[in-house]
Protein backbone atom coordinates (compact mmCIF):
# COMPACT_ATOMS: atom_id res chain seq x y z
CA UNK A 1 0.00 0.00 0.00
CA UNK A 2 1.46 3.38 -0.99
CA UNK A 3 1.04 6.36 1.30
CA UNK A 4 -0.79 9.47 0.07
CA UNK A 5 1.67 12.18 -1.04
CA UNK A 6 1.98 15.22 1.16
CA UNK A 7 0.94 18.66 -0.04
CA UNK A 8 4.59 19.60 -0.58
CA UNK A 9 5.20 16.42 -2.59
CA UNK A 10 2.13 17.00 -4.68
CA UNK A 11 3.21 20.56 -5.35
CA UNK A 12 6.61 19.37 -6.45
CA UNK A 13 5.03 16.74 -8.70
CA UNK A 14 2.84 19.30 -10.43
CA UNK A 15 4.30 20.76 -13.58
CA UNK A 16 4.21 24.40 -14.55
CA UNK A 17 3.73 26.24 -17.83
CA UNK A 18 7.49 26.46 -18.26
CA UNK A 19 7.49 22.69 -18.70
CA UNK A 20 4.95 22.78 -21.54
CA UNK A 21 2.30 20.81 -19.66
CA UNK A 22 -1.07 21.63 -18.19
CA UNK A 23 -0.35 24.72 -16.13
CA UNK A 24 -1.03 24.70 -12.41
CA UNK A 25 0.12 27.11 -9.72
CA UNK A 26 3.90 27.10 -10.03
CA UNK A 27 5.78 27.78 -6.83
CA UNK A 28 9.07 26.32 -8.01
CA UNK A 29 11.68 28.68 -9.43
CA UNK A 30 12.62 28.13 -13.06
CA UNK A 31 15.98 26.38 -13.40
CA UNK A 32 19.05 28.64 -13.44
CA UNK A 33 17.53 31.56 -11.51
CA UNK A 34 19.51 32.53 -8.43
CA UNK A 35 17.66 34.34 -5.68
CA UNK A 36 20.55 34.69 -3.17
CA UNK A 37 23.49 37.17 -3.03
CA UNK A 38 23.80 40.36 -5.12
CA UNK A 39 22.82 38.61 -8.32
CA UNK A 40 19.72 37.30 -6.56
CA UNK A 41 18.83 40.80 -5.45
CA UNK A 42 19.05 41.98 -9.04
CA UNK A 43 16.90 39.02 -10.14
CA UNK A 44 14.31 39.90 -7.50
CA UNK A 45 14.26 43.49 -8.68
CA UNK A 46 13.88 42.28 -12.28
CA UNK A 47 10.98 40.04 -11.22
CA UNK A 48 9.30 42.91 -9.42
CA UNK A 49 9.77 45.19 -12.42
CA UNK A 50 8.26 42.56 -14.74
CA UNK A 51 5.34 41.97 -12.37
CA UNK A 52 4.55 45.67 -12.12
CA UNK A 53 4.69 45.98 -15.91
CA UNK A 54 1.68 43.64 -16.18
CA UNK A 55 -1.38 45.44 -17.57
CA UNK A 56 -3.43 44.37 -14.57
CA UNK A 57 -1.47 46.73 -12.31
CA UNK A 58 -2.10 49.61 -14.67
CA UNK A 59 -5.79 48.69 -14.82
CA UNK A 60 -6.35 48.44 -11.10
CA UNK A 61 -4.40 51.58 -10.32
CA UNK A 62 -6.83 53.70 -12.35
CA UNK A 63 -7.70 56.91 -10.62
CA UNK A 64 -11.16 56.78 -9.05
CA UNK A 65 -13.56 59.24 -10.72
CA UNK A 66 -14.12 61.11 -7.44
CA UNK A 67 -10.42 61.74 -6.74
Amino acid sequence: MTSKPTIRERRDMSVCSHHQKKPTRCNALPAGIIMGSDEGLLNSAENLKNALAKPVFKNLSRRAPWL
Partner: protein
Amino acid sequence: MAVIRHKSTKPLQVNPIKLSQPMGATLAFLGVDRCMPLMHGGQGCTSFTKVYFTRHFCEPVAIQTSAVTDAIAVLDGGDYSIVESVKNITRKVSPSLIGLCTTGLTETKGDDIRGVARQIDFPLVTVHTPDYEGGLESGWALACKAMIEQLVAPAVTAVNDNTVVLLPHVSLQPIEVEKVKEFVAGFGFNVFALPDLSTSLDGHLGEKQAALSSGGIRVEEIRALAEAGLVISVGDSMRSCATTLQAKNPEMRHHHVPHLSGLAATDRLVAILLEETGFSSPPLPVVRWRQRLQDAMLDSHFALGQSRFLVVAEPDHLTGLCKALQEAGGRTTVAITTVDTPSLKDIVAERVIVGDLEDAEQLAADYDLIIGNGHCEALAHRQAKKLILRGFPNWEQVGITLKHDLLYEGSSSFLCEVANTA
Protein backbone atom coordinates in the same frame (compact mmCIF):
# COMPACT_ATOMS: atom_id res chain seq x y z
CA MET B 1 -7.02 43.87 -32.67
CA ALA B 2 -9.32 40.88 -32.78
CA VAL B 3 -9.88 38.73 -35.85
CA ILE B 4 -13.62 38.96 -36.45
CA ARG B 5 -15.69 36.50 -38.47
CA HIS B 6 -18.97 38.29 -39.08
CA LYS B 7 -20.82 35.47 -40.79
CA SER B 8 -20.74 31.70 -40.73
CA THR B 9 -19.99 30.02 -44.02
CA LYS B 10 -21.90 26.88 -43.06
CA PRO B 11 -25.34 26.21 -44.54
CA LEU B 12 -26.69 25.29 -41.08
CA GLN B 13 -25.94 25.69 -37.38
CA VAL B 14 -24.59 22.67 -35.50
CA ASN B 15 -25.14 22.80 -31.71
CA PRO B 16 -26.58 26.30 -32.01
CA ILE B 17 -26.37 28.94 -29.31
CA LYS B 18 -28.61 31.47 -31.01
CA LEU B 19 -32.08 32.06 -29.55
CA SER B 20 -34.95 33.63 -31.43
CA GLN B 21 -36.17 37.24 -31.53
CA PRO B 22 -39.74 36.39 -30.34
CA MET B 23 -38.18 34.80 -27.26
CA GLY B 24 -36.33 38.04 -26.46
CA ALA B 25 -39.48 40.11 -27.05
CA THR B 26 -41.52 37.82 -24.80
CA LEU B 27 -38.94 38.14 -22.03
CA ALA B 28 -39.14 41.93 -22.31
CA PHE B 29 -42.93 41.84 -21.95
CA LEU B 30 -42.49 39.69 -18.83
CA GLY B 31 -40.74 42.68 -17.27
CA VAL B 32 -44.02 44.62 -17.27
CA ASP B 33 -46.46 44.20 -14.39
CA ARG B 34 -49.61 42.16 -15.16
CA CYS B 35 -48.62 41.74 -18.81
CA MET B 36 -49.55 38.82 -21.02
CA PRO B 37 -47.13 38.13 -23.87
CA LEU B 38 -48.97 36.83 -26.93
CA MET B 39 -47.02 35.12 -29.69
CA HIS B 40 -48.63 35.24 -33.10
CA GLY B 41 -47.57 31.96 -34.65
CA GLY B 42 -47.75 28.20 -34.30
CA GLN B 43 -48.24 26.61 -30.90
CA GLY B 44 -44.76 25.12 -31.06
CA CYS B 45 -43.10 28.55 -31.09
CA THR B 46 -44.78 29.43 -27.81
CA SER B 47 -44.39 26.11 -26.05
CA PHE B 48 -40.68 26.07 -26.88
CA THR B 49 -40.22 29.52 -25.35
CA LYS B 50 -42.37 28.65 -22.34
CA VAL B 51 -40.31 25.53 -21.63
CA TYR B 52 -37.05 27.49 -21.88
CA PHE B 53 -38.22 30.22 -19.50
CA THR B 54 -39.84 27.85 -17.01
CA ARG B 55 -36.71 25.72 -16.76
CA HIS B 56 -34.34 28.69 -16.62
CA PHE B 57 -36.21 30.76 -14.03
CA CYS B 58 -37.71 27.75 -12.17
CA GLU B 59 -41.00 29.64 -12.16
CA PRO B 60 -44.36 29.30 -13.93
CA VAL B 61 -44.27 31.68 -16.90
CA ALA B 62 -47.37 33.18 -18.51
CA ILE B 63 -47.32 33.20 -22.32
CA GLN B 64 -50.22 32.84 -24.76
CA THR B 65 -50.33 31.89 -28.43
CA SER B 66 -52.59 32.77 -31.34
CA ALA B 67 -52.25 29.09 -32.33
CA VAL B 68 -51.95 29.50 -36.09
CA THR B 69 -52.65 26.14 -37.73
CA ASP B 70 -51.99 25.14 -41.34
CA ALA B 71 -55.56 26.06 -42.39
CA ILE B 72 -55.52 29.38 -40.51
CA ALA B 73 -52.13 30.18 -42.01
CA VAL B 74 -53.64 29.91 -45.49
CA LEU B 75 -57.01 31.55 -44.90
CA ASP B 76 -56.38 34.19 -42.23
CA GLY B 77 -54.21 37.28 -42.26
CA GLY B 78 -54.07 37.41 -38.49
CA ASP B 79 -57.42 39.17 -38.00
CA TYR B 80 -59.29 36.11 -36.80
CA SER B 81 -56.61 34.38 -34.72
CA ILE B 82 -55.37 37.50 -32.90
CA VAL B 83 -58.85 38.84 -32.13
CA GLU B 84 -59.96 35.43 -30.84
CA SER B 85 -56.80 35.10 -28.73
CA VAL B 86 -57.34 38.48 -27.09
CA LYS B 87 -60.98 37.54 -26.38
CA ASN B 88 -59.86 34.28 -24.76
CA ILE B 89 -57.21 35.99 -22.66
CA THR B 90 -59.47 38.77 -21.39
CA ARG B 91 -62.26 36.30 -20.60
CA LYS B 92 -60.04 34.44 -18.13
CA VAL B 93 -57.69 37.10 -16.74
CA SER B 94 -57.48 40.87 -16.72
CA PRO B 95 -54.01 41.91 -17.88
CA SER B 96 -52.93 45.53 -17.88
CA LEU B 97 -51.20 45.01 -21.23
CA ILE B 98 -50.93 42.42 -23.98
CA GLY B 99 -47.57 42.23 -25.74
CA LEU B 100 -48.09 40.90 -29.24
CA CYS B 101 -45.05 39.66 -31.16
CA THR B 102 -44.81 37.82 -34.44
CA THR B 103 -42.79 34.72 -35.32
CA GLY B 104 -41.18 33.34 -38.48
CA LEU B 105 -44.38 31.84 -39.87
CA THR B 106 -46.54 34.95 -39.60
CA GLU B 107 -43.75 37.27 -40.74
CA THR B 108 -43.24 35.14 -43.85
CA LYS B 109 -46.99 35.49 -44.53
CA GLY B 110 -46.71 39.23 -43.89
CA ASP B 111 -49.55 39.58 -41.36
CA ASP B 112 -50.45 43.19 -40.57
CA ILE B 113 -50.52 43.00 -36.77
CA ARG B 114 -50.64 46.78 -36.29
CA GLY B 115 -53.76 46.93 -38.46
CA VAL B 116 -55.33 44.15 -36.42
CA ALA B 117 -54.35 45.82 -33.15
CA ARG B 118 -56.25 48.96 -34.20
CA GLN B 119 -59.46 46.88 -34.34
CA ILE B 120 -59.00 45.73 -30.74
CA ASP B 121 -60.12 47.96 -27.88
CA PHE B 122 -57.51 46.85 -25.36
CA PRO B 123 -54.00 48.11 -24.41
CA LEU B 124 -51.81 46.25 -26.87
CA VAL B 125 -48.18 46.68 -27.92
CA THR B 126 -47.20 45.11 -31.23
CA VAL B 127 -43.71 44.23 -32.38
CA HIS B 128 -42.38 42.52 -35.49
CA THR B 129 -39.87 39.85 -34.45
CA PRO B 130 -39.19 37.40 -37.27
CA ASP B 131 -37.29 34.28 -36.18
CA TYR B 132 -35.05 34.43 -39.22
CA GLU B 133 -33.48 37.78 -38.26
CA GLY B 134 -31.54 38.88 -35.18
CA GLY B 135 -31.62 36.97 -31.92
CA LEU B 136 -32.62 37.12 -28.27
CA GLU B 137 -30.90 40.45 -27.71
CA SER B 138 -32.43 42.23 -30.71
CA GLY B 139 -35.91 40.83 -29.91
CA TRP B 140 -35.68 42.28 -26.40
CA ALA B 141 -34.54 45.64 -27.76
CA LEU B 142 -37.29 45.72 -30.41
CA ALA B 143 -39.98 45.01 -27.81
CA CYS B 144 -38.58 47.68 -25.52
CA LYS B 145 -38.53 50.18 -28.38
CA ALA B 146 -42.10 49.25 -29.33
CA MET B 147 -43.27 49.82 -25.75
CA ILE B 148 -41.67 53.26 -25.74
CA GLU B 149 -43.11 54.18 -29.15
CA GLN B 150 -46.62 52.93 -28.46
CA LEU B 151 -47.10 53.57 -24.72
CA VAL B 152 -44.97 56.50 -23.56
CA ALA B 153 -46.85 59.78 -23.71
CA PRO B 154 -44.88 62.81 -24.99
CA ALA B 155 -43.82 65.03 -22.09
CA VAL B 156 -46.00 68.07 -21.47
CA THR B 157 -44.51 69.14 -18.15
CA ALA B 158 -40.91 70.07 -17.35
CA VAL B 159 -38.52 67.17 -16.89
CA ASN B 160 -38.06 65.68 -13.43
CA ASP B 161 -34.30 65.71 -12.85
CA ASN B 162 -34.61 63.25 -9.97
CA THR B 163 -35.99 60.51 -12.18
CA VAL B 164 -33.77 58.17 -14.18
CA VAL B 165 -34.88 55.63 -16.79
CA LEU B 166 -32.63 52.59 -16.97
CA LEU B 167 -32.67 50.57 -20.19
CA PRO B 168 -30.87 47.27 -19.48
CA HIS B 169 -29.86 44.79 -22.20
CA VAL B 170 -31.32 41.29 -22.25
CA SER B 171 -28.48 39.46 -20.52
CA LEU B 172 -28.82 41.25 -17.20
CA GLN B 173 -30.13 38.82 -14.60
CA PRO B 174 -33.09 40.04 -12.49
CA ILE B 175 -30.84 40.65 -9.48
CA GLU B 176 -28.40 42.56 -11.68
CA VAL B 177 -31.16 44.94 -12.75
CA GLU B 178 -32.00 45.42 -9.07
CA LYS B 179 -28.36 46.06 -8.15
CA VAL B 180 -27.95 48.67 -10.89
CA LYS B 181 -31.20 50.34 -9.80
CA GLU B 182 -30.00 50.42 -6.19
CA PHE B 183 -26.59 51.74 -7.29
CA VAL B 184 -28.14 54.63 -9.20
CA ALA B 185 -30.71 55.21 -6.43
CA GLY B 186 -27.78 55.55 -4.00
CA PHE B 187 -27.04 58.88 -5.68
CA GLY B 188 -30.51 60.14 -4.80
CA PHE B 189 -32.37 59.25 -7.99
CA ASN B 190 -35.77 57.67 -8.43
CA VAL B 191 -35.07 54.83 -10.90
CA PHE B 192 -37.38 53.04 -13.33
CA ALA B 193 -36.06 50.13 -15.39
CA LEU B 194 -37.69 49.20 -18.69
CA PRO B 195 -38.19 46.25 -18.83
CA ASP B 196 -37.83 45.42 -15.14
CA LEU B 197 -37.25 41.73 -14.47
CA SER B 198 -35.97 42.48 -10.96
CA THR B 199 -39.43 42.31 -9.45
CA SER B 200 -41.09 39.84 -11.83
CA LEU B 201 -38.71 36.95 -12.51
CA ASP B 202 -36.42 37.26 -9.50
CA GLY B 203 -37.68 34.02 -8.00
CA HIS B 204 -39.75 35.39 -5.13
CA LEU B 205 -42.45 33.40 -3.37
CA GLY B 206 -45.71 35.22 -4.03
CA GLU B 207 -49.07 34.72 -2.39
CA LYS B 208 -50.35 32.52 -5.18
CA GLN B 209 -49.35 31.36 -8.63
CA ALA B 210 -50.13 34.23 -10.97
CA ALA B 211 -51.63 33.79 -14.43
CA LEU B 212 -49.90 37.01 -15.53
CA SER B 213 -46.44 38.43 -14.93
CA SER B 214 -46.29 39.27 -11.23
CA GLY B 215 -44.09 42.31 -10.86
CA GLY B 216 -42.11 44.55 -13.17
CA ILE B 217 -42.68 48.13 -14.24
CA ARG B 218 -46.34 49.20 -14.26
CA VAL B 219 -48.03 50.40 -17.46
CA GLU B 220 -48.86 53.79 -15.87
CA GLU B 221 -45.17 54.20 -15.04
CA ILE B 222 -44.20 53.43 -18.65
CA ARG B 223 -46.67 56.05 -19.90
CA ALA B 224 -44.97 58.68 -17.73
CA LEU B 225 -41.35 57.80 -18.58
CA ALA B 226 -40.91 60.84 -20.85
CA GLU B 227 -41.00 63.07 -17.78
CA ALA B 228 -37.68 61.67 -16.58
CA GLY B 229 -34.68 63.96 -16.80
CA LEU B 230 -32.13 61.28 -17.57
CA VAL B 231 -31.97 58.00 -19.46
CA ILE B 232 -29.12 55.50 -19.11
CA SER B 233 -28.88 52.73 -21.69
CA VAL B 234 -26.79 49.66 -20.91
CA GLY B 235 -25.59 47.74 -23.97
CA ASP B 236 -25.33 48.84 -27.58
CA SER B 237 -28.54 46.99 -28.44
CA MET B 238 -30.46 49.47 -26.21
CA ARG B 239 -29.06 52.66 -27.70
CA SER B 240 -31.90 53.02 -30.22
CA CYS B 241 -34.47 52.62 -27.41
CA ALA B 242 -32.92 55.59 -25.61
CA THR B 243 -33.05 57.64 -28.81
CA THR B 244 -36.73 56.76 -29.20
CA LEU B 245 -37.42 57.83 -25.62
CA GLN B 246 -35.55 61.08 -26.15
CA ALA B 247 -37.80 61.79 -29.14
CA LYS B 248 -40.72 61.87 -26.68
CA ASN B 249 -38.90 64.53 -24.68
CA PRO B 250 -35.95 66.37 -26.30
CA GLU B 251 -34.97 67.87 -22.92
CA MET B 252 -34.11 64.42 -21.56
CA ARG B 253 -30.37 63.77 -21.27
CA HIS B 254 -28.97 60.44 -22.45
CA HIS B 255 -25.90 58.57 -21.24
CA HIS B 256 -24.80 55.29 -22.75
CA VAL B 257 -22.62 52.58 -21.23
CA PRO B 258 -21.76 49.52 -23.37
CA HIS B 259 -21.66 47.29 -20.27
CA LEU B 260 -21.19 47.46 -16.50
CA SER B 261 -18.59 44.73 -15.95
CA GLY B 262 -15.28 45.50 -14.35
CA LEU B 263 -13.53 48.54 -12.92
CA ALA B 264 -13.39 50.93 -15.88
CA ALA B 265 -17.04 50.48 -16.87
CA THR B 266 -18.28 51.04 -13.31
CA ASP B 267 -15.98 54.04 -12.97
CA ARG B 268 -17.64 55.45 -16.10
CA LEU B 269 -21.12 55.03 -14.56
CA VAL B 270 -19.98 56.65 -11.30
CA ALA B 271 -18.47 59.56 -13.25
CA ILE B 272 -21.81 60.07 -15.05
CA LEU B 273 -23.76 60.01 -11.81
CA LEU B 274 -21.33 62.38 -10.06
CA GLU B 275 -21.54 64.77 -12.99
CA GLU B 276 -25.35 64.67 -12.98
CA THR B 277 -25.71 65.12 -9.23
CA GLY B 278 -22.81 67.45 -8.64
CA PHE B 279 -21.69 65.29 -5.68
CA SER B 280 -17.98 65.22 -4.91
CA SER B 281 -17.91 61.52 -3.95
CA PRO B 282 -20.21 58.48 -4.14
CA PRO B 283 -21.78 56.74 -1.10
CA LEU B 284 -19.22 55.05 1.18
CA PRO B 285 -20.15 51.44 0.26
CA VAL B 286 -19.34 52.26 -3.39
CA VAL B 287 -15.86 53.48 -2.40
CA ARG B 288 -15.31 50.33 -0.30
CA TRP B 289 -16.48 47.97 -3.07
CA ARG B 290 -14.13 49.66 -5.53
CA GLN B 291 -11.24 48.89 -3.20
CA ARG B 292 -12.44 45.29 -2.87
CA LEU B 293 -12.57 44.93 -6.64
CA GLN B 294 -9.02 46.28 -6.95
CA ASP B 295 -7.91 43.66 -4.44
CA ALA B 296 -9.88 40.92 -6.21
CA MET B 297 -8.15 41.87 -9.49
CA LEU B 298 -4.80 41.59 -7.79
CA ASP B 299 -5.59 38.26 -6.12
CA SER B 300 -7.14 36.66 -9.18
CA HIS B 301 -4.67 37.75 -11.84
CA PHE B 302 -2.23 34.92 -11.08
CA ALA B 303 -4.82 32.27 -11.94
CA LEU B 304 -6.48 34.24 -14.74
CA GLY B 305 -3.17 34.95 -16.42
CA GLN B 306 -2.46 31.23 -16.75
CA SER B 307 -5.76 30.35 -18.43
CA ARG B 308 -7.09 30.86 -21.92
CA PHE B 309 -10.83 31.51 -22.15
CA LEU B 310 -13.64 30.69 -24.54
CA VAL B 311 -16.56 33.04 -23.87
CA VAL B 312 -19.95 32.34 -25.46
CA ALA B 313 -22.69 34.97 -25.06
CA GLU B 314 -24.99 37.52 -26.65
CA PRO B 315 -22.98 40.48 -28.07
CA ASP B 316 -23.55 42.98 -25.22
CA HIS B 317 -22.94 40.35 -22.55
CA LEU B 318 -19.83 39.14 -24.37
CA THR B 319 -18.38 42.67 -24.47
CA GLY B 320 -18.68 42.96 -20.70
CA LEU B 321 -17.38 39.50 -19.79
CA CYS B 322 -14.31 39.76 -22.03
CA LYS B 323 -13.46 43.24 -20.74
CA ALA B 324 -13.74 42.17 -17.08
CA LEU B 325 -11.43 39.22 -17.73
CA GLN B 326 -8.94 41.35 -19.66
CA GLU B 327 -8.74 43.96 -16.91
CA ALA B 328 -7.63 41.27 -14.46
CA GLY B 329 -5.07 39.71 -16.80
CA GLY B 330 -7.31 37.06 -18.42
CA ARG B 331 -6.82 36.18 -22.08
CA THR B 332 -9.93 35.45 -24.14
CA THR B 333 -8.65 33.47 -27.09
CA VAL B 334 -12.04 32.71 -28.61
CA ALA B 335 -15.29 34.67 -28.25
CA ILE B 336 -18.40 33.25 -29.90
CA THR B 337 -21.60 35.20 -30.28
CA THR B 338 -25.02 34.80 -31.84
CA VAL B 339 -25.49 37.64 -34.31
CA ASP B 340 -23.39 40.17 -36.17
CA THR B 341 -23.50 43.64 -34.63
CA PRO B 342 -21.27 46.73 -34.91
CA SER B 343 -20.23 46.22 -31.25
CA LEU B 344 -18.20 43.11 -32.15
CA LYS B 345 -15.20 45.33 -32.90
CA ASP B 346 -15.17 46.43 -29.24
CA ILE B 347 -14.87 42.90 -27.86
CA VAL B 348 -11.49 42.31 -26.23
CA ALA B 349 -10.60 38.86 -27.59
CA GLU B 350 -8.08 37.36 -29.97
CA ARG B 351 -10.77 35.87 -32.20
CA VAL B 352 -14.46 36.85 -32.37
CA ILE B 353 -16.80 34.51 -34.22
CA VAL B 354 -20.48 34.72 -35.09
CA GLY B 355 -21.20 31.03 -35.02
CA ASP B 356 -22.18 27.96 -33.06
CA LEU B 357 -20.73 25.44 -30.66
CA GLU B 358 -19.35 23.31 -33.50
CA ASP B 359 -16.94 26.20 -34.12
CA ALA B 360 -16.02 26.07 -30.43
CA GLU B 361 -15.39 22.34 -30.67
CA GLN B 362 -13.06 22.76 -33.64
CA LEU B 363 -11.02 25.34 -31.73
CA ALA B 364 -10.83 23.24 -28.54
CA ALA B 365 -7.03 23.37 -28.48
CA ASP B 366 -7.16 27.16 -28.10
CA TYR B 367 -8.81 27.45 -24.66
CA ASP B 368 -8.76 25.92 -21.17
CA LEU B 369 -11.96 27.26 -19.63
CA ILE B 370 -15.42 27.92 -21.05
CA ILE B 371 -17.75 30.70 -19.90
CA GLY B 372 -21.14 30.21 -21.50
CA ASN B 373 -24.74 29.10 -21.17
CA GLY B 374 -26.14 25.65 -20.41
CA HIS B 375 -25.63 24.50 -23.99
CA CYS B 376 -21.87 24.58 -23.36
CA GLU B 377 -22.07 21.85 -20.74
CA ALA B 378 -21.95 18.95 -23.21
CA LEU B 379 -19.01 20.62 -25.00
CA ALA B 380 -17.14 21.01 -21.70
CA HIS B 381 -17.68 17.32 -20.88
CA ARG B 382 -16.59 16.12 -24.32
CA GLN B 383 -13.49 18.31 -24.41
CA ALA B 384 -12.69 17.96 -20.68
CA LYS B 385 -12.71 21.72 -20.17
CA LYS B 386 -13.64 23.67 -17.08
CA LEU B 387 -16.97 25.48 -17.27
CA ILE B 388 -18.54 28.54 -15.71
CA LEU B 389 -22.22 28.87 -16.52
CA ARG B 390 -23.36 32.33 -17.55
CA GLY B 391 -26.13 33.57 -19.82
CA PHE B 392 -29.45 32.19 -20.96
CA PRO B 393 -30.52 29.39 -20.74
CA ASN B 394 -29.05 27.75 -17.66
CA TRP B 395 -30.96 24.63 -16.66
CA GLU B 396 -28.24 23.11 -14.52
CA GLN B 397 -28.20 25.45 -11.53
CA VAL B 398 -30.71 26.99 -9.17
CA GLY B 399 -30.39 30.52 -7.82
CA ILE B 400 -28.99 31.94 -11.04
CA THR B 401 -31.36 34.89 -10.88
CA LEU B 402 -29.63 35.83 -7.61
CA LYS B 403 -26.11 35.83 -9.04
CA HIS B 404 -24.67 39.10 -10.25
CA ASP B 405 -21.47 40.03 -12.09
CA LEU B 406 -21.91 43.77 -12.48
CA LEU B 407 -20.54 46.94 -10.90
CA TYR B 408 -17.69 46.83 -8.38
CA GLU B 409 -19.38 44.24 -6.17
CA GLY B 410 -20.48 41.74 -8.81
CA SER B 411 -17.24 42.03 -10.78
CA SER B 412 -15.30 41.10 -7.62
CA SER B 413 -17.27 37.91 -7.11
CA PHE B 414 -17.11 37.07 -10.83
CA LEU B 415 -13.32 37.36 -10.95
CA CYS B 416 -12.95 35.28 -7.79
CA GLU B 417 -15.25 32.58 -9.18
CA VAL B 418 -13.30 32.42 -12.44
CA ALA B 419 -9.96 32.34 -10.61
CA ASN B 420 -11.16 29.54 -8.33
CA THR B 421 -12.31 27.51 -11.33
CA ALA B 422 -9.27 28.15 -13.54
